[in-house]
């Protein structure tokens, strides 16, 4: 169940990324390029030929010298939000949580009047919403996430390749998944998405799938994605080792992200959604 009450709290966030992006469109993205814009970057001495509109007359009155205001050229940024909708996301509230994060990002982007695109994937790309601006687009996105049926296996690598081909210009890609598949495939997917884009990879996990605390003794354990069954004895030792393997997997993803300059967050579903965005704020605006 996706709740959108938290969106109001997100009003406090200004969705900006202090990273160099390139776009032909003006927008709310801060650029170190000088040009037309709103925010004054610095002042420069007037030389004949400079735009007279740029002369700061207030400053002239105080200093009797002509200075012109130099503006930071503002660029627009398209955000692509990819949400894992495979069968494994049906564990606990993983998908709901992922959907809320996606909605949060879409909200922040919409609030800045930027374009965002949304796509869900499992074994292949499933629903792809083209980059657009506006509240209607946002509401459509929320609606899409709400009614999403979770099925299939996770194939990050394959889907990243497919989706990467659809990104026209340098963009921000937010990849939200549980990343529960072969580490090599996850790494390859990350490498592909981070090429020419800013990437934020967010892993969603349920504490129960990590430490298996809710399990013990003889059990027939089924894989949610493949339906493969394994009969085993869930001992504390196995649980501890399972958690260890899980942590190693996360470390592997983290390493891949750091190799390509992407940001990685591993968020438990028990984390309040606002706290999660607080955490993202280290890389946002």
């Amino acid at each position, binding site marked *: 169940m996706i709740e959108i009450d938290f969106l109001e709290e997100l009003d406090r966030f200004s969705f900006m990324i202090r990273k160099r992006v390139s776009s032909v469109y003006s927008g709310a993205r801060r650029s170190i390029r000088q040009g037309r814009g709103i925010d004054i970057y610095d002042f420069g001495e007037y030389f004949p030929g400079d735009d007279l509109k740029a002369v700061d007359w207030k400053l002239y009155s105080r200093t009797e010298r002509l200075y012109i205001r130099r503006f930071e050229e503002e660029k627009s940024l398209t955000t692509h939000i990819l949400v894992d909708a495979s069968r494994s996301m049906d564990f606990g509230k993983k998908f709901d949580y992922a959907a809320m994060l996606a909605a949060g990002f879409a909200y922040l982007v919409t609030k800045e009047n930027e374009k965002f695109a949304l796509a869900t994937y499992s074994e292949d790309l499933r629903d792809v919403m083209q980059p657009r601006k506006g509240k209607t687009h946002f509401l459509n996105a929320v609606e899409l996430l709400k009614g999403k049926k979770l099925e299939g296996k996770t194939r990050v690598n394959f889907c990243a390749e497919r989706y990467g081909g659809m990104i026209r210009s340098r963009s921000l890609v937010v990849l939200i998944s549980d990343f529960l598949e072969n580490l090599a495939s996850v790494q390859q997917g990350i490498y592909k998405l981070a090429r020419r884009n800013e990437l934020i990879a967010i892993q969603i996990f349920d504490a129960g799938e990590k430490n298996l605390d809710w*399990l013990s003794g003889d059990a027939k354990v089924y894989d949610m994605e493949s339906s493969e069954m394994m009969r085993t004895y869930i001992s504390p030792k196995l649980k501890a080792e399972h958690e260890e393997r899980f942590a190693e997997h996360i470390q592997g993803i983290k390493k891949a992200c750091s190799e390509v300059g992407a940001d990685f967050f591993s968020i438990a579903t028990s984390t309040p959604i606002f706290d999660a965005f607080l955490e993202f704020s280290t890389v946002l605006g």
Partner: protein
Amino acid sequence: MFGNPVALFGLAALLPIVILYLVKPKPKDVFIPSLMFIREVEKRESVLSSLLKRFVRDPLLLIQLAVIFFAALAMAEPFYISRESVKAENIALVIDASASMQATDVAPSRFAKAVELAKSAFSERDRISIILAANIPIAVLKEGTGSEAKAILSALKPKATPANLNDAILLAREMLSGENKRILVFSDFSNADASLAGKIAGAEGIALDFFRVGGGGKNIGIVDMKQLKDGYSILVKSYVDKDEMLGIEILRNGVLVSSEERGIAALSSELLTLRNVSGTSAVRLRYADDFPLDNQVFIAAPLPERHKVLMVSANRTSYLKHALSSLKQVELAEAVPPIVPAFSSYAAVILDRVSRQSLLPGMVRELSLYVENGGNLIVIASEHLKALEEVHHLLPVEIRNDTAASGVKIETSNEVTRDIDFEGVAVKYLLAGAKNSSITLASAADGSPLISFWYKGGGKVAYVGIRHEAGWSDFYLKTSFPIFWSKLLEFMVGGEEDENLKTGNFLPLQTETRVKTPSTTVVTDRLFLDEAGVYEFGGKKIAANLLDERESNISTRAVEGMQYKRSFERTSVEIRREFRDYLLFAALAFVIGELMLLNRRGEL
């Protein structure tokens, strides 16, 4: 068996556990996002534990069942009754190693059977002595352990000699010490009566058991061999109760030279005669029986070659000369003194009638040297002999002046005088006295030696006081005359060693000598002929053969009055052996195993 069978009801506790196991909830079906990590964890487990896991779904159940099973069984105090000897014994094993033990009427042989039986006759706790009973007993182990005894028994081999069980048992009696003494005799008792030694041992409180191996089998074998003048007579005896055909083969230096078939009647003997035998020969019976050892006889000594004999005499002709010329083994040369050839090339020199004048000092010196170096000298009495003082020191008699007449009395019956008929022989003889260390074979009525010899230096000197001339005696007219001379010459020049011996004899050698036996090579100064075959040493060959009618008779029945056993029984008692402790240890081991498993699962 159980000391406390009630405790077996404890096994009923297994039932509820099994039931609990059966009725316990089925494993839960749980869904997790990915089996990836569990699979990785299980992949790192050892091959053994993953294999175990594949077959044993719940090892804890099995462990718990085992704990209850062993604990309940331990409480039931299980035991078994074993028959064991009361305590360790001092055992002497007497193994008959006589030739008849090589008989193969029991497979693989009587001896192997005896050894096999002996090996089962003791335990590791006993102190074992082993005596090999050949014609002399040989102690091969004194108070060794069971394993030592087994090793030695495995290495023993039978001999080709008769056995003396009595001596072996008496030796065993001496070797045993301490308490619980026991002598076990393993033999075919084919010709050995050990009852006397048995009685002695029994009187001293030593338990004595006889184990009989074999006791049947058919055999035809060579049981005797005699040397003839020009060959050998060989006695073949059949112990088979029906007529049989034999193949008789003669081999010379290992090569078959003749072969013939001959029938032999049931339970009878056949005499074979071999002539013109020379070199190392063997006679072989081709007949499949249970005792191959006596199917062959080896002959090492070739017949004596012709001996070169020099007769030194002033007489050109004499009866003696004719007699000697007629002997096949004599190659007679004559010399009339003072012209004589070198003595050293002659096997014997006969000094007949030599006058004082013709006896040159050089000849006397030569003669002394000849005797000193191993020559054989025969001096015949004559009227000149008294005067020949230079040669008196060589004679075994002291010659006196006078002569007398008498009959001939045999003093010593040996191979020279045996079967020689001196009856009615009258002689004129030189009065003489026997010197110390001389041996008088025949003498006159007054005791004067008529035939006498002694060893002088390395040689032998004989004095013959019966002169072969009319007026001296009429012995030369007797048919015994040439026989006597033949025997005397054979005695003088023939070797003292018999080259065809029977097994079981000791052959003293002068020094440590390297001897090639039929099976190996030994260095010894005392050769024990314990194998049948040819022995070689110092360029000489000696043959040893069993030639023992009693050993060949492998089918003899048991000696009456002796109690035989077929299997080993020893004084034993029933001992209750409990193994409760082992079961408790097993239960404890499973408890520890359970704890380890729980710890491994992290449930402790």
